[in-house]
């Protein structure tokens, strides 16, 4: 396949890193973006293990002033931008609606939803120019159903699914497909930290909290990050060419929707 570039946010996290490895093996050159400087090291490691061109950019995706650094790396690679992977997201401070600080709501929405809108706005011209491209958002099963103590997170991820639909409708004529992957529980530090926090909130042990959550999953375990990456790879690749506006639920059966 001819040269193609992809941009991936949240690339230093569990799902982001696994997706970078997968897409690099699929033949993409990649610009990995994350708030943490660690993303440069991740890029070096993925480049070394796959042989692909992979560079890291430390940037705050909530601020478009930082996007120029991403543009420069895309230009340096020199291949058309065929893929935008919007993986970056944060969990909220666990708490009821009654006690939730509106600043926390804003923080979660800024990163999980508003930044994705800004990134789409910024990269649509380049994706359109590539004459055949795809955007994949990472939503969540929590975006398809509300859950106590996660009001901001759930609503932000529901917003991601809705934004995916709107973008799919607007961009089909530009040969840009837009789809979402909705993971269930994934064995990343984000999930395990959340289990610790929720256990403390509910006054139970971590093991008991983990059992409570994992027993709800028919497959009986959380996903490996690579299992989310494989769905993103599918949506980015030729086998997904007739899909747009779709959400793929990779959740071990914990929610049927």
């Amino acid at each position, binding site marked *: 396949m001819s040269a193609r570039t992809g941009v991936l946010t949240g690339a230093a996290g569990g799902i982001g890193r696994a997706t970078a490895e997968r897409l690099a093996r699929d033949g993409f050159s990649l610009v990995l973006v994350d708030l943490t400087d660690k993303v440069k090291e991740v890029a070096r490691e993925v480049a070394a293990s796959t042989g692909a061109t992979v560079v890291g950019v430390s940037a705050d995706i909530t601020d478009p002033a930082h996007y120029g650094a991403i543009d420069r790396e895309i230009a340096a690679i020199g291949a058309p931008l065929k893929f935008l992977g919007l993986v970056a997201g944060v969990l909220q401070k666990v708490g009821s609606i009654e006690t939730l600080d509106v600043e926390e709501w804003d923080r979660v929405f800024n990163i999980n939803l508003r930044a994705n809108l800004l990134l789409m706005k910024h990269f649509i011209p380049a994706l359109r120019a590539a004459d055949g491209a795809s955007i994949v958002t990472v939503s969540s099963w929590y975006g398809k159903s509300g859950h106590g103590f996660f009001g901001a997170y759930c609503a932000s991820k529901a917003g991601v699914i809705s934004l995916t639909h709107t973008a799919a409708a607007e961009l089909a004529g530009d040969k840009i497909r837009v789809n979402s992957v909705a993971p269930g529980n994934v064995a990343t530090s984000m999930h395990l930290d959340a289990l610790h926090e929720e256990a403390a909130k509910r006054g139970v042990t971590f093991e008991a909290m983990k059992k409570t959550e994992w027993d709800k999953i*028919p497959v009986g375990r959380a996903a490996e990050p690579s299992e989310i990456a494989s769905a993103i790879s599918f949506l980015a690749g030729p086998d997904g060419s007739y899909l*747009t506006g*779709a959400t793929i639920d990779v959740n071990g059966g914990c929610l049927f929707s």
Partner: protein
Amino acid sequence: MSTQGKGAVVTGAARGIGRQIATALMEDGYGVVIADIDPEVGGRTVAELGKAHPDRVVFARVDVTSRDDQKAAIAICRKQFGGISVMVNNAGFNKPEPFLEATEKTWHAIMNVNALGVLIGIQEAAKAMIADGTRGKIINTASIAGRTGFADFAPYSASKAAVISLTQAAARALAGKGITVNAFGPGVVDTPLWEKLDADLLAMGASSAPGEAMNSLASQILLGRVAKPSDVVGTVRFLWSQQSDYMTGQVLLIDGGMILQ
């Protein structure tokens, strides 16, 4: 590639989407049983698909509403290919009727093939997989009509909603055995089923020219065209591949962006 233990059964595989799925399974190294009610077209399909690998494709005459027929097709798969690791419950049909005129006869015929046929297919494939210790993949053909009802094909819409429910029930029942059950839902696809639908809608007076009903539906598709069977196969391949091992009980719509659900 060895075909040992890489057997698959595809119902309704003589033509349309089923045939394309069978072709792709063979490309991936599977031995495939073409299970279909039509021995004439089925025989031709086997002859054509078997040109490259005559030992990897076989026909079984199957009426999916008959448990004995389905059992026999699965037995052939285990005997010829050493097991069954993929079951695609794809057979289905549609007969449009205006909503107020939909008959009991049509209801029972469609529900029997499209819903009961899928229940039997899941059950018999799962029994064989459990007996063999196979961590198999069961894939059912749903439809966008299972997510949103269409006025002129109420029984079909209901039968495809049933396929989605059966997929979910089976996913819960079989996860502990390492068997995943998922469905895919095509939108408007250029297949014999939709050609007949277009003709039936014309005969019914729901459209006024050949192709009009299809085109009117196509105008609601974001990608601007109806699907070819090959557009659907990529998603089905994803569902039988290891790439989807963490998915069960899910429905993937391949509608080119139509109902956005």
